């Protein structure tokens, strides 16, 4: 179980994951070794999963991002598995999410420009299995993206 000190550590570190552990310990008013022990325990308990670098695809020339909301043909019993498996084979697909609601699956797709997007959409997306309907949301800007948890 997590106590208040654990939560404080996660809150502080979440706000700045580049912070060295020594500084984190100081801000949480812990000795570096006690801080490290707590982090290790939270890692072992699968609470703290790691640190990841967030890639800005626009800096690599991918100017287009589209959110595709897909409804699947649920009369096919393996529709979800087969669709997701095939979607994994498309390199431009960044995210695959499944939902309870009006949307079954959502794909986040990037492309260098609209011409390339159109090509990916026609050749790789529309050919995915069991699609009943598909809706596109074009991405304009990201206002908030830190994905922090309100711990």
């Amino acid at each position: 179980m997590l106590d208040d000190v654990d939560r404080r550590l996660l809150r502080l570190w979440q706000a700045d994951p580049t912070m060295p552990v020594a500084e984190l310990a100081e801000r949480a008013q812990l000795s570096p070794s006690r801080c490290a022990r707590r982090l290790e325990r939270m890692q072992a308990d699968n609470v703290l999963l790691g640190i990841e670098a967030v890639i800005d695809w626009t800096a690599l020339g991918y100017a287009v991002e589209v959110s595709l909301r897909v409804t699947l043909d649920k009369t096919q019993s393996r529709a979800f598995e087969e669709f997701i498996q095939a979607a994994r084979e498309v390199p431009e697909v960044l995210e695959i999410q499944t939902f309870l609601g009006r949307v079954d699956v959502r794909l986040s797709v990037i492309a260098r420009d609209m011409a390339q997007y159109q090509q990916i959409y026609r050749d790789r997306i529309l050919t995915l299995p069991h699609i009943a309907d598909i809706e596109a949301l074009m991405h304009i800007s990201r206002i908030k993206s830190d994905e922090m948890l309100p711990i």
Partner: protein
Amino acid sequence: MIELDEIDRKLLQALARDAGQGTAVLGRRFGLSQPATWRRIRRLEQAGVIQARRLRLNAEALGFGVTVFLGVKLARKGQISLEDFERAVSAIPEVQTVEHVLGLYDYRLRVVARDLADFERVLRRRIMALPGAGDLEANVLLSEERRPGPIG
């Protein structure tokens, strides 16, 4: 625009999976010295390719059992300021991401909550109280998978 070579791409992929590993460990994997690894990462950061580091937490273990994606349509477009809406929605702690989109909805929000009852509270008290919020569509996240993307 920045040109990436094979090693840059591998480095980027490795960091997207685990940015907690040291430059010495990474360098050994790709046959680079520690300073050379450090210089390559620094270059990726300066070019904005690595835009941030993010702590990966197990939301469920921290008591957040529900993630909902909300499509929000603005009511009375033209009469409300997008900046006001964006500022207000970004200030809600349970709202993890805010994306401005074009299509069926104007904004796409990722909202985290303890359970569905908690989500209802956030929805009614915070989201529906936003200036200009109109039609909403909620989809509860069941599973999520991030892919490496077109590197390499």
